[in-house]
């Protein structure tokens, strides 16, 4: 399986990669914002996108809306990882096309459960 992590924080990308590695997944692409994320997707599809919300150049929400508008990748599962946890934020993310949502800070077990649940759909 191939994963794409989109986050402007290299620390957060590393933390998520650590979790994916523990789940046995090694094939992980990284991007620092939504625009870079689209470039990575243009190079080839992935099985799961894990994205932050607040990023420079292109936010996670704009990135997901764009992904959902692209026929060849529109059904790719998306997990959003963000500190934006107010009810209105979650509603906006779901409307944009997010499949599941992890609020920072999170435990490794929470991240693991969310990844497994999205992949099981």
């Amino acid at each position, binding site marked *: 399986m191939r994963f794409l992590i989109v986050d402007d*924080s290299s620390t957060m990308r590393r933390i998520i990669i*650590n979790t994916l590695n523990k789940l046995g997944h090694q094939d992980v692409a990284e991007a620092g914002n939504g625009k870079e994320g689209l470039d990575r997707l243009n190079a080839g599809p992935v099985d799961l996108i894990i994205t932050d919300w607040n990023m420079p150049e292109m936010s996670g929400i704009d990135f997901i809306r764009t992904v959902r508008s692209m026929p060849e990748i529109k059904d790719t599962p998306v997990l959003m990882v963000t500190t934006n946890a*107010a009810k209105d934020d979650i509603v906006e993310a779901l409307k944009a096309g997010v499949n599941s949502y992890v609020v920072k800070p*999170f435990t490794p077990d929470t991240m693991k459960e969310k990844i497994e649940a999205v992949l099981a759909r």
Partner: protein
Amino acid sequence: MPPAPAIESLFIDELTAATRDVFKKMVFQEVEGSSPIAGEARRPKANVVGQVAFAGKTSGVVAFYSTMDAAQIITASMLGIEMKNINGELPDAIGELTNMIAGSFRTRVAHAKGEMWAISVPTVTIGSDFYTRYVSDVQRVLCPFRMKNKAELFVELIVTRSAGQ
């Protein structure tokens, strides 16, 4: 212009809870808090300062202060690496830590008071013998914490003023 209002205890409680939660879940260690210090009675000695601004009905800054040694311990723990292998990751790790503390604080206040704030991207300053001053009229409260190795950390809430005041 009248002085900024005193910081309400709910904000201090939620900031303290947010800090504990971030350390427990992302740094994998509990931090022990002590009594918050209002105003500028104590200035933390720190080589590493992370800051995130917030704006809404209430506006201000959440600042994180630590020594370089403590920041290295935090960075290594967050990334799951040994301290000797840290190679430039410290500023981003402390920025992300501050971002999570401020973001969690924002969410907690939204739930408690219904206030919605925008928050900035984090900034991190690393150096020595510097002091952060705010030009506008502000209220400050400094929340001290200790890590397992007794290293002291501080999280400060700086509130400018609320809309309409």
